[in-house]
């Protein structure tokens, strides 16, 4: 297990290197630069700005400089948020996204798994149709529709909760974004859990368990749920990475100071260092999440072992 983990971590290095290199050059190929905007700058001021950020150097040189700084853990200064370094922005935004995303995933699991299981056990019943119908709606209605409706209904019309803002992470400010963020995940997880539960319940070892005279509750809880959760777990890896690096839409609509907004603002502003910083961060997170998921596999399914 340990050597497997180490091997995976070592393999991540070239992967990340390729991701960083491609992103670096793709970003530079994109038309428009960090200082193009409504306020067109005189050439000398644009030149000053470019010099300040070493953008006047040849591209390979800039790349080497960036990689060199990265090795020292320095993501560089943000071009657009000059009072913060990229590292500071990520360190400020990530805990926020982590909190919102973590709670959303937790809520999605707490609601999605039981719903999926219930639907699978009572297949083709009213419960099943109700759950699956609702889940389909949850998947079909995108975040950018749900979030403003939540803000309008619970924030403006009923005035139960703030319509936006972070307020240092006070829980009333958390409710709407977390729920809005989890709805799609609840739907996905419920559907996935149902499908895999149905498949598991039809498998031989379940038949054996039933033949041994175990009660249905015992069959489900002791034998079916763990293997049925495998697809959900493999889905969770990238989903968690995605959701805790921020949901752009949710953060934008509820004014949450998470890392997702930096993706969008950074890309729109051609804030090269900020985009690179978030890409690197996201890349590392995906690699780690996938590794954790693979390790979890062996805990859930005794047939999967990572000895070599």
């Amino acid at each position, binding site marked *: 297990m340990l050597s497997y983990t180490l091997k995976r971590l070592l393999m991540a290095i070239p992967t990340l290197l390729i991701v960083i290199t491609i992103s670096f050059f793709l970003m530079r190929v994109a*038309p*428009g*630069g*960090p200082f*193009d*905007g*409504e*306020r*067109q*700058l*005189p050439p*000398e*001021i644009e030149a*000053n*700005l*470019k*010099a*300040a950020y070493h953008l006047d150097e040849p591209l390979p040189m800039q790349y080497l400089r960036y990689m060199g700084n990265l090795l020292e853990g320095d993501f560089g200064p943000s071009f*657009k*948020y*000059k*009072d*913060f370094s990229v590292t*500071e922005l990520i360190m*400020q*935004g990530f805990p926020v996204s982590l909190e919102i995303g973590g709670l959303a995933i937790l809520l999605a699991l707490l609601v999605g798994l*039981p719903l999926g*299981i219930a639907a699978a056990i009572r297949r083709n019943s009213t419960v099943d149709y109700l759950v699956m119908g609702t889940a389909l709606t949850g998947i079909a209605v995108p975040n950018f529709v749900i979030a*403003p409706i939540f*803000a*309008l209904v*619970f*924030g*403006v019309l009923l*005035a*139960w*909760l*703030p*319509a*936006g*803002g*972070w*307020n240092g992470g*006070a*829980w*009333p400010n958390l*409710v709407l974004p977390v729920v809005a963020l989890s709805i799609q995940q609840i739907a996905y997880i419920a559907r996935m859990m149902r499908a895999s539960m149905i498949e598991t319940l039809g498998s031989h070892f379940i038949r054996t368990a039933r033949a041994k005279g175990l009660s249905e*509750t015992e069959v489900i*809880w002791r034998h079916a749920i763990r293997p049925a959760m495998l697809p959900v777990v493999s889905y969770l890896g990238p989903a968690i990475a995605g959701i805790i690096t921020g949901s752009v839409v949710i953060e*934008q*609509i*509820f*004014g949450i*100071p*998470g890392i997702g*907004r*930096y993706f969008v*603002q950074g890309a*729109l502003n*051609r804030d090269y260092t900020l985009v690179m910083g978030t890409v690197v961060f996201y890349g590392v997170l995906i690699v780690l999440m996938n590794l954790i998921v693979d390790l979890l596999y062996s805990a859930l399914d005794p047939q999967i072992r990572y000895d070599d």
Partner: protein
Amino acid sequence: MFDSRTRRLTACCIPLLLGALSLSAPLSAATLAIGIQGEPASLDSARIGGTTWENDVLGDLFEGLVTLDPAGHYVPGVARSWEVSDDGKTYTFHLRDDADWSDGQPVVAADFVLAFQRLFDPANGAVYANLFYPIGGAEARTKGAADAPPLGVVAVDAKTLEITLERPTPYFTTLLAHIAASPVPAHVVKRYGDAWTQMDHIVTNGAFTPTSWVSHDHIAARKNPEFHAADEVALDGVDYYPVEDRSASLQRFRAGGLDIVRDFSPDRYQWLQDNLPDAVHLAPQLANYYFALNQRDGHPTADKRVREALNLAIRRDVIADKIMGGVVSPASGFVPGGVSHYDAQRMPGLDRPRDERIAQARRLLEDAGYGPDHPLELNLRYSTTEANKRIAVALAAMWQPLGVKTQLINAEGAVHYAELANGNFDVGRASWVADFDDASNFLGILQSGAPKNYGGYRSPAFDALMRAANQETDADARQQLLEQAERQALGDYAMAPIYIDVSRNLVAPDLSGWQDNALNRHLSRWISRGD
């Protein structure tokens, strides 16, 4: 087992829901929550990004030599008085004795000297440096010239500042109210360098001083007790919330989380007027919306007849009333009405009845060699917003009867303006919001080689008039020259003006002290709650 778990789940949800019924803690009654349209790039006047919302924040935190009253008039700030030399080139400012930084240190002339040194230091790449090129040595320093003359900003003594200009600049004192002309605390900058704006170092000399800044969440500022007019500042503090999404800021305003929202979408105007009439503030602004017409060789719009025809066929009233919902007013000139010491000019031919204009436009295009066999083909670039799109579509439709085939190209802001700057367009959307209240701030755009002269308009006559206006010290004579220059550009159909923009603000009805003004600058020191 399943059931008991479900019960437990429900049990932990109930307090969550009950708690939800109580609102989040209300803001302190005398704290103002302003929804600004984005995150400031910096609190350092030499490193700001050039966005309108930086005015809101830095305008409250710092006070320049000149400042603004609630109506947007220029009034003395840190300078209690000043004299101008007879040749109009030397200004001597006398600083207030009671002007202090928030740490109690006095604001001294050296603070302004350092601020201007940093503004023109190439290493800072200050985006507003060129606004202050009238100051002696400013341009050469910004360009990094080795033989740059000494900077024309000198501390005569602690409370006397002398600024020498390259040339007389009648609007110079209005420039000094710009946030880029804010002083910097020399004693703090010397100690911490560029890190002086960090929350544990920063001191300010405005009505408020920042206490915390969570990027993309909020900047909190508290009343500065050392401010010279602190007694007259009613608010305890101001919190600035950057909200890029305009419908999100509207909802937060409706829910009571924001007291002021600095912009709303024009298409919400009617709804707001019906539902929140006391909160809607619409006021003419020193801002225009126009289309640059590319006059470089190889573009059909290089032909003046084509530019005239396109201008004649635009129904500006339809765009203003129908597309923009009557929020803006149609523009027939480049400099918006309302600029001080200036009378709005009109593009020739726009007053005639529509049929005549269309007939004339047809003739002009025919003369220029376009017709059914050889239709005029144009590309029109706009930056992606709903309103821009609708206007672009409307223009294409208005030009269609002339046989013009318009290809619409939209792109996000960074790409759009890069393409415009590269001259890669025939017709391109642009706009300008005044930095200061003077016609030259608009007309300067059309000078040969000006960075924002997207159309590449080159007129020796126009340039000569602008130069003459720059040299002129008499306000009336200067006004004549500037107006003449604009008439020249309008007669050349150098661009296609569309509308004069308005400021769109939402202001909670329980606030007093807010006055709509053409600069759309509102210092929180004038705002209070209740009557």
